[in-house]
């Protein structure tokens, strides 16, 4: 028995709770994709024309650095990769590569923006979900910036 892409989308935590008509609308923008280990999903600086929902696998978000790419965060099953498709100028700010064989659903950004314009209820629902995602990632980034595991300042302690 094959699973339709609509069913696959409905199973993703990110799309849980959407109505059947909203899911059907999104399905028109979706396709199944797979990436081999080391293959890029997105490249920093390029046009952000899509985003991904990871079905199975692991993806590293990367930033370029003089000494080579630095992994900022890893994402796994059920996670969403990319929100630049939603935010102007629709350019990837970071890169993402598959850390192993990764199966995902790709959603066409232009198609998704059009659907959101046509159906503002869908647009607002997706905006709420992406805002939540962005706030979660921002919180995590702030924690990483705090560098909480670094050695504590001496503060005069003799320890």
């Amino acid at each position: 028995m094959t699973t339709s892409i609509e069913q696959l989308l409905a199973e993703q935590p990110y799309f849980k709770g959407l109505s059947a008509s909203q899911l059907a609308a999104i399905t028109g923008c979706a396709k199944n994709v797979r990436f081999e280990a080391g293959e890029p999903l997105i490249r920093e600086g390029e046009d952000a024309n899509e985003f991904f929902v990871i079905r199975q696998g692991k993806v590293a978000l990367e930033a370029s650095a003089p000494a080579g790419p630095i992994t900022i965060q890893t994402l796994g099953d059920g996670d969403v990769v990319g929100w630049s498709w939603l935010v102007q100028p629709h350019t990837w700010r970071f890169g993402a590569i598959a850390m192993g064989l990764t199966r995902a659903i790709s959603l066409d950004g232009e198609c998704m923006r059009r659907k959101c314009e046509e159906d503002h209820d869908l647009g607002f629902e997706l905006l709420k979900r992406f805002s939540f995602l962005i706030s979660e990632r921002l919180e995590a980034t702030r924690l990483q910036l705090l560098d909480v595991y670094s050695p504590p300042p001496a503060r005069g302690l003799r320890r």
Partner: protein
Amino acid sequence: MTSLDPMAPVPFRVLRTDRETADTFTLELAPDEGGPPFGFRPGQFNMLYVFGKGEAPISISGDPGRRDRLVHTTRVVGAVTAGMGALKKGDVLGVRGPFGTAWPVDETAGSDVIFIAGGIGLAPLRPAILHVLANRRRYGRVVLLYGARTPEDVLYRRDLRRWRAELDMDVYVTVDRASRDWHGDVGVVTALVPRIPFDRDNCVAMLCGPEVMMRFAVLELLKRGIPASMVHLSMERNMKCAVGFCGHCQVGPHFVCKDGPVFRYDELARLLKIREV
């Protein structure tokens, strides 16, 4: 207790030293001249006295089932721990302890157990993990979430490999930053909490790490429905006397040295929000 007088250090001899990471090391000690065996409960700490340098509170990180060996892992942060790090096999240091409260490993038998450690915070949790694994059948699911700064800062690599290989324990390790050579997770340890399976109605969580990390990890656990009374944290303060006389380690009304270092989260929740505390 190693001595009838809690203020009098008892001599222990260094049996072995291990470099864990660039700035952390492990000392394995035994009572000097065949002293009595040393018992402790997981989560307790000792005051280690480096002669000529001073004394520092260090969590016990060894196996509570082994009373012939005392194991401490610590990081070099000042003169005393630097002196400790310079000790060699055969050297002697003073030990006072064990002090403080323990992880609730016996009271929570039958529950799922979640350990969340950050950085050097894995050291005080290690005895609890070893105890749970030694009594594995008495517990439900066992999960360890461990966050470190970089792959090079990951503590107890040999233990982590062994625990991960145990088919009935889930071990997740994440680092804050890494190059492409690292194939594990990158991101904050708190982000792992939503992924792990556990029975929120029959579960205990034990956390040790930087306070900021613990605060955010607790929020994630509470979001998942774990009662605050089933969350336990180990606090770090500047313990001096270790017996509740001097007040150096106070957190509000609590002396971390004798009322802690392991606290139930609901005992501390209000205090953790007060910046001055």
